[in-house]
């Protein structure tokens, strides 16, 4: 590869983009609407076996007898593994006990049923209340430390108490958010194709193509990561929960070592609920103090994260708002529940809901418009711009000035309407890792390849857009290859870091490819490479459009040679620091307590949007997940049995067609940073806060614990009536 002297790569002026920052069609949509798109779950190989896991039905137990002989003896059952050990014990409903691989899914189910297990149930805790009891069994044996593990504090309590006491107005409350589930439509899983020998192929439903090879190589005992090829053509949703080989992958590798045959191991929906991770809940005590003029002055908070066996996540308080005097503590409360994992903006959704509820209450108490009150306490003017924009789009002036004092509407004149808003922030920057290759051949084929993945985020499409725009070609003329660990390194899609890590490397690769290509083509047109331009399917001399070659003609010059250009990360093409606001309008039925979101507006910045359609789709999707979080979704543990009582999609309700309001995603074009930043995570953050605040505006009822279910509304209304 020639290393000609490098001109600084930039995205170029916004007005010159022909594809980037436009509304683009998703490249893989035709595959998806015809059923041709092959997900891991759809992979079929000759001789493939179906894996199933037997999971613990108890939240805390020991296995005193595990007899797999009947399963092993069944014809068609090719491998059985025991996954229990006394050291490990069973610490949550869903903890794997054993697994089987059989020639059909039906047979695999039969084999699971044929395994005889004797459990000795141990005392468990699955609710915060039980976990805090003095005599609670310890989830992690720690010499009587209990289940609440402090993880730090900040500030001087006495000092803050003093300042708080002097504040003109104080609000105080206890807030909570539930454990939520990702409900990826494609469950976690893999197809491991290992038949003995030195190499293996793994299809994985993962957010990180390159996050799997090493895990799989270790699990299979192969030489190094290159011994494993990981393929991720399509994947059916992750939302933060799918990195590395994961539990089903580990188990599939164990089974394939025995069976020496390809194993498909996809979690069942029940497995998915109890053993594939979740979003941690929280319970928070928060006190805010402000002055009459509307300035937040002091904050005191006690955060308890509910991450089951894990630590859980919670962003720092005060969240986004400026409060100078702060005392806060944080702790994790453990229960015998599957550990939390990342889920779309981990820690931020929880913190935003809590903070925004308190801020909103403070505004109401001070009798200041909540939008104005927010601006008074948000330093970053990006929020001011976004709040104004969102207010305009939703029609904030229609908002009832006094909470609850709204006319009754609806068919039965029983509904009240109100509006709320909230803000969120996110980092979203990238890092060095991606290696992107672009190839041009003399037949006119041009392709960019990198081992990234497309979760539905639209990675494939924006890579094509960057490439096609660089060469002035239509997107249909370029090829994008992703989803294989045999392609260049790429980052896992977590923390909205993919775009900022990947797109700069793509841009570097296509820029270099163009430079190398122009060096070859320039002599044919008798000019210097820097005088060439690629546009409209042609290569021509700047200022002399008649001196041109069609793309095909130009490529012919390569002869037997070709262009291969590798690009790596360029920090200057990406940025971080994101802002977003949500506005919600709700209708609350005061008779039934039902809440319907009727309109939702999101305003989100992301630097330079690569594909406006995809950004808007992400914003819609994030707002919809926020509706689920605000109104519907919660893991319900039964304290007595220790089981999750709604571990299926009938009882764990997610938003469907009739929960969807009018939605308006607004890309914040006031953000003129000429860098790319991922935005899929921040787009969810303020939603629940905005909805809860709208419920307050409509009814005067402040709900401090998610989800906002009808019973809470009705109880709140009853309390209001009495007071």
């Amino acid at each position: 590869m020639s290393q000609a002297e490098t001109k600084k790569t930039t995205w170029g002026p916004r007005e010159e983009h022909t594809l980037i920052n436009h509304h683009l069609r998703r490249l893989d949509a035709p595959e998806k609407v015809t059923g041709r798109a092959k997900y891991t779950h759809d992979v079929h190989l000759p001789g493939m076996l179906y894996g199933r896991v037997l999971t613990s039905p108890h939240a805390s137990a020991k296995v005193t007898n595990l007899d797999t002989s009947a399963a092993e003896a069944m014809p068609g059952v090719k491998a059985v593994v025991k996954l229990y050990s006394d050291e490990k014990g069973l610490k949550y409903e869903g903890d794997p006990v054993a697994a089987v691989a059989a020639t059909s899914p039906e047979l695999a189910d039969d084999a699971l049923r044929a395994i005889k297990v004797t459990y000795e149930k141990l005392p468990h805790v699955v609710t915060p209340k039980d976990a805090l009891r003095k005599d609670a069994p310890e989830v992690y044996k720690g010499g009587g430390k209990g289940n609440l593990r402090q993880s730090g504090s900040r500030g001087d309590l006495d000092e803050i108490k003093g300042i708080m006491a002097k504040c003109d107005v104080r609000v105080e409350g206890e807030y909570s958010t539930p454990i939520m589930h990702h409900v990826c439509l494609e469950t976690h899983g893999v197809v491991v194709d290992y038949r003995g020998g030195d190499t293996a192929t793994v299809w994985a439903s993962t957010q990180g193509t390159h996050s799997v090879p090493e895990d799989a190589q270790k699990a299979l005992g192969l030489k190094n990561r290159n011994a494993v090829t990981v393929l991720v053509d399509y994947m059916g949703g992750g939302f933060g929960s799918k990195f590395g080989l994961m539990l089903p992958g580990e188990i599939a590798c164990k089974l394939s070592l025995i069976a020496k045959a390809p194993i498909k191991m996809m979690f069942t929906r029940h497995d998915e609920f109890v053993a594939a991770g979740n979003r941690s809940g929280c319970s928070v005590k928060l006190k805010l103090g402000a002055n009459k003029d509307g300035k937040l002055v002091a904050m005191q908070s006690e955060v308890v994260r509910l991450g089951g066996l894990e630590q859980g996540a919670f962003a720092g308080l005060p969240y986004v708002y400026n409060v100078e005097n702060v005392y806060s503590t944080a702790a994790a409360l453990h229960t015998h529940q599957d550990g939390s994992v990342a889920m779309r903006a981990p820690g931020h959704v929880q913190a935003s809901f809590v903070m925004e509820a308190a801020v909103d209450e403070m505004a109401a108490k001070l009798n200041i418009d909540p939008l104005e009150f927010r601006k008074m306490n948000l330093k970053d003017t990006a929020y001011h711009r976004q709040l104004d924009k969102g207010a305009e789009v939703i029609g904030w002036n229609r908002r009832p000035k006094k909470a609850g004092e709204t006319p009754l509407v609806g068919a039965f004149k029983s509904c009240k309407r109100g509006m709320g808003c909230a803000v969120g922030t996110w980092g979203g920057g990238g890092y060095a890792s991606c290696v992107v290759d672009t190839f041009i051949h003399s037949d006119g084929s041009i392709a960019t390849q990198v081992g990234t993945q497309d979760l539905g985020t639209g990675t494939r499409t924006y890579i094509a857009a960057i490439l096609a725009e660089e060469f002035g070609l239509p997107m249909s003329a370029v090829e994008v290859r992703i989803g294989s660990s045999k392609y260049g390194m790429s980052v896992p899609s977590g923390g909205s870091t993919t775009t900022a890590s990947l797109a700069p490397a793509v841009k570097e690769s296509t820029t270099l490819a163009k430079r190398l290509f122009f060096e070859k083509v320039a002599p044919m047109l008798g000019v210097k490479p820097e005088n060439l331009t690629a546009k409209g399917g042609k290569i021509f001399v700047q200022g002399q459009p008649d001196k041109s070659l069609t793309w095909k003609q130009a490529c012919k010059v390569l002869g037997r040679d070709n262009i291969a250009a590798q690009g790596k990360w360029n920090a200057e093409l990406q940025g971080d620091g994101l802002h977003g606001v949500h506005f919600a309008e709700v209708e609350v039925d005061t008779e039934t307590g039902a809440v319907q979101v009727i309109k939702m507006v999101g305003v989100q910045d992301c630097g330079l949007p690569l594909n406006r359609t995809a950004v808007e789709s992400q914003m819609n999707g994030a707002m919809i997940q926020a509706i689920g979080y605000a109104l519907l979704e919660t893991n319900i543990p039964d304290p007595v049995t220790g089981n999750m009582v709604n571990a299926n999609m009938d009882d764990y309700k997610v938003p469907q067609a009739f929960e969807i309001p009018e939605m308006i995603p607004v890309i914040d074009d006031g953000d003129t940073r000429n860098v790319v930043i991922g935005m899929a995570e921040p787009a969810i953050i303020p939603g629940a806060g905005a909805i809860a605040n709208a419920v307050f505006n409509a009814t005067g009822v402040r709900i401090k614990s998610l989800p906002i279910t009808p019973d809470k509304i009705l109880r709140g209304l009853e309390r209001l009536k009495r007071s």
Partner: protein
Amino acid sequence: MSKESTRDPAPKRGVSRRQFFKGVGVVGAGTALVPESSEAASGGAAFKPGKHSITLKVNGHAVALEVEPRTSLLYALRDHANPPLTGTKLVCDQGACGACTVHVDGKSAYSCNLLAMDMVGKEITTVEGLAGADGKLHPLQEAFIAKDALMCGFCTPGFLMAISAQLKKNPNATVEELKHACAGNVCRCGTYPHIFEAMVETVKKMKGGA
């Protein structure tokens, strides 16, 4: 659940659900029962456990299958057909998400809730058969592409089949009707607003084209 065709209608021919389950019993409980073939079974008796050879009509083709009485249509399509038809997705396996929606005699149905052996003699259409034989996409498929009505795409076949069944019934369907048609479907990525736009676009086009 919004789909009439999944409401377990008492089959006019064939066996009732209750009779059927009598025959399946628990695993290995090889009690009963009479007929060897599904054709014979449509006489009203229960099925014998174990494999049965049946032929289903899927997307206009005869598909020969070996299934057990308990095998759902969804598993038959995805795991027992050769080549497998994996466009139809398995998500909840209990009639709660719509991802497995197919057309049975033109009506939408959750294939996870239907037993393969009950489907003999019926016309099954899956997402692979939604486009014309010439490969021309259904207007709804076109509209899904144009309006970005999909992200990860895992729910997409189910939505397409649910909505297209309603459009078949009523090409002038209102958005409200079409929302009802897919009210049992789940899209976790949250593409609903764009799905609704695609509905509007499709009805417009079908009117224009009709």
